[in-house]
C-alpha cells in the first residue's frame, strides 16, 4: 500500500518534471552574440533560447560573461560607452537591437533586479509606484494603490510593510530591500525579469525567501538569474547555462547539467576544480 503511494508520487513528480522541461515556446532567442569592451571580446558567439515562464540560470566563474549577456537582454549595456554588441537577440520575436526599438519600452518589458539592493531613497510606496507613474499604467490614485499592493503581495513583502508604506525604502533590511526591488520590477508588468545575483548580498534566511519567491513568480514570468552559487542554480532553475571565458559551454536542463555534464569544463567547475 505504502509502496504504491510512493511509486505514484514518484511517477507524478516525473510527469510534472517532464512537463516543465518539455520544449516550451522560447521568449528570448539569441544568435551569434559577440560583445566587445573597447576591442576586448567578452562574449564569443553566444546562441541560446530561453524558455517562457521558466527559470533559467546562468552560472560560471567571475568574468565569464554571464552578467554581460544578461545585460544584453534589456540593453543595459548601452550605458557603457566602450561596450559594443554584435549579433541578434530577439525578445518575443522582435530584434531588440534594431533601430526602431524603444529602449525604454524594452526595459519595461524586460525588468531587472540588481546584485546589490538599490531601492530609491524614497518611500516604500513611491518605490513601487514610480515605474507605473512614468509609464502611465494607472488612471487614478486608488488604482495605483491597488497595484502597489498587488506588486508587494507578489513579492511577498506586503505583510511586512503594509503599515509603513510612507517610510523610506532604504530603511528596510537587506532582504526586504531586495524584495522591494523585485516588487518595483514586476510593478510595470514585465514578461521577463532578469536577476543579477539577487541574493549574493543577503544572509541565508533572506536568500531562502528570495528563492521561494523566484519559484512563485515563475508561473507568470520568465526569470533569468545569474548566480555564483551552484546550489542556488540547482534549487531554483529548470535550465542552466554554463559560461566560461566568454563562451557558452553547456546549456540544458538543470538536472542533467549538474549530474552528467557533457563538457569537461562544466564538470570541473561543478566539482570545484575551476572557478
Amino acid at each position, binding site marked *: 500500500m505504502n509502496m504504491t503511494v510512493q511509486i505514484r508520487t514518484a511517477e507524478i513528480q516525473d510527469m510534472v518534471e517532464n512537463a516543465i522541461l518539455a520544449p516550451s515556446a522560447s521568449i528570448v532567442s539569441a544568435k551569434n552574440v559577440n560583445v566587445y569592451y573597447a576591442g576586448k571580446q567578452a562574449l564569443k558567439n553566444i546562441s541560446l533560447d530561453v524558455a517562457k515562464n521558466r527559470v533559467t540560470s546562468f552560472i560560471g566563474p567571475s568574468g565569464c560573461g554571464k552578467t554581460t549577456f544578461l545585460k544584453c537582454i534589456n540593453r543595459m549595456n548601452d550605458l557603457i560607452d566602450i561596450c559594443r554588441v554584435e549579433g541578434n537577440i530577439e525578445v518575443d520575436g522582435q530584434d531588440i537591437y534594431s533601430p526602431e526599438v524603444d529602449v525604454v*519600452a524594452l526595459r519595461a518589458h524586460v525588468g531587472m533586479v540588481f546584485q546589490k539592493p538599490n531601492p530609491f531613497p524614497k518611500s516604500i510606496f513611491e518605490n513601487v509606484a514610480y515605474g507605473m507613474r512614468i509609464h502611465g499604467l494607472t488612471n487614478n490614485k486608488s488604482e495605483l494603490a491597488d497595484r502597489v499592493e498587488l506588486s508587494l503581495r507578489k513579492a511577498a513583502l506586503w505583510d511586512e510593510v503594509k503599515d509603513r508604506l510612507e517610510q523610506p525604502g532604504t530603511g528596510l533590511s537587506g532582504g526586504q530591500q531586495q524584495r522591494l526591488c523585485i516588487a518595483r520590477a514586476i510593478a510595470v508588468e514585465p514578461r521577463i525579469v532578469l536577476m543579477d545575483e539577487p541574493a549574493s548580498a543577503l544572509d541565508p534566511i533572506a536568500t531562502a525567501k528570495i528563492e521561494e519567491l523566484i519559484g512563485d513568480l515563475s508561473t507568470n514570468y520568465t526569470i533569468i538569474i545569474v548566480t555564483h552559487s551552484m546550489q542556488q542554480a540547482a534549487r531554483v532553475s529548470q535550465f542552466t547555462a554554463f559560461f566560461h571565458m566568454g563562451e557558452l559551454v553547456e546549456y540544458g536542463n538543470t538536472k542533467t547539467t549538474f549530474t552528467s555534464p557533457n563538457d569537461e569544463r562544466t564538470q570541473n567547475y561543478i566539482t570545484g576544480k575551476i572557478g
Partner: protein
Amino acid sequence: MTNSFVMRSSKSRKRHAAEMRFQWMGRIAIIIAIGFLVFMVGSIAMMGAGALKQTHIAFDVDLSHNEIDPAFPEKADYDAIIKASLRKAFPDITDRREKRELYRLVSAEASFSLKNFVVNNPAHIGQTHKLWFIASDDVDLFFKGNITIDEKGNAGRLNAQEVAWVRIFERNQNIETRFNTRFFTAGDSREPELAGILSSLTGTAFTLLITFLIAFPIGIFSAIFLEEFIPQSRWGDIIEVNITNLAAVPSIVFGILGLTIFLNTFGMPRSSPLVGGLVLALMTLPTIIIASRAALRSVSPSIREAALGVGATQIQTVFHHVVPLALPGMLTGAIVGMARALGETAPLLMIGMVAFIVDVPNSILAPATALPVQIFLWADSPERAFLEKTSAAIIVLLVFLVLMNLIAIILRSKHRQRF
C-alpha cells in the same frame, strides 16, 4: 620572558618618537593658525566696535518766530539757527576764528535734522528746546577715547580750546554716546560721522542676486549636461580642462572682460549691480560647475541603474533621482562660490562700481557700490574716523560670509543624514 610587543628595541622607540614629533608639529601648526585668526578677528573687532557708538551733543535751540515762518517752516535758515544757538551757549566767544571752531563741534548734518524736527513738529515754533545733534567726527573720536591729548593740549584735530568746550558739555551732561543706527541706515558720506553701509550693502545684495540668478541655473545645467549626457567624450574632456583652468583665472581678468563686453560692446549702464552681477556670475560659474559635477558624481550609480531598469528615460532618471540627491551638494557649491563673489573687489573696480554712492540704489540699473569696495574706499580716506568705520564694515562682511558658509554646512550635513 620577553614580550615582543613591549617597546624595548631602539627601532620601535625611534618610530614612536617620530610619531610624537609629527603629532606635535601638527598641533603647533594648528595653534599658530588659530592664533593668527584670533589676532586678525580680534583686532578688527576691537577697532570696529567703536563704530557702533556715535557721540551726540545737546544744546538749547531757540526756534523763534523771527527765524522761522510757521507757514513755510522748511524755508528757514537752520544752519544759522544752529550757529546762533551755539553762540548763545558760549556767550563769551567773540573772535571769528573761535566761533568757526565752535561750529565745528557739531556735524554738518545738524541743520537737516533740526529742519526735520521743526517740519514734523510745527507746534514747537516760538519755543526754546534742548535738542540732541550728531557730534562731528573729531569730537566723536575724542569723546570715545580713541585719541588722547598731546603735550600741546590738542587732541587730534581738536585744539585745546575745543577740548575745553567738550569738557564743558561733558560737565553739563550734554554729551553722550548712543547706538549708531545711522551706520546701518545711511549711505556713504564725506563726513565720517554720517557715513553708513546701507547703500553698499544694498548694492551687494542686488549684485549677488544677479550673480545667483545667472550662475546657479547655468552652472547646474552645464554640470548636469556634462556629467550625465556627455560623459567621457572628447569634447567633454576638453570642456572640463577649460572649466578647471577658468576657476583659477585671477578675478580682475573677469573685470576686464566685463568692461570690454558688457560696458563697451553692449553699452550696459556703468557702475550698475547688473553688470557687477554678470561679471561675478562669470567668475562664480566654474566653481559652481565643478562642485555640481562632483555632487552628481557622488550619487551612487546603482540609483541610475535602478531607474533605467524600470524603464525610465535618461532625462527622467537624471531629474527624478540623481538631481534631487545631488541638489544639496550643488547648493553648497553655489553658496561657496557666492561667498567668494561677496568678498570680490577687483572685478568691480574695473566696471566702475568704485563710485562714491550716497543714495541707496533702488534698482539693478542704478549706480551702486559693493561692501568690499566700500571698505576699500573708506580705508583710502584720510579722516581718522573712517578707520573704525572700515573695521566695522569688515565685521559686517565677515558676518555675511560666516552666515553663507553656515548655510552651506547645514545643507551638507542634511545631505549626509539621508544616506
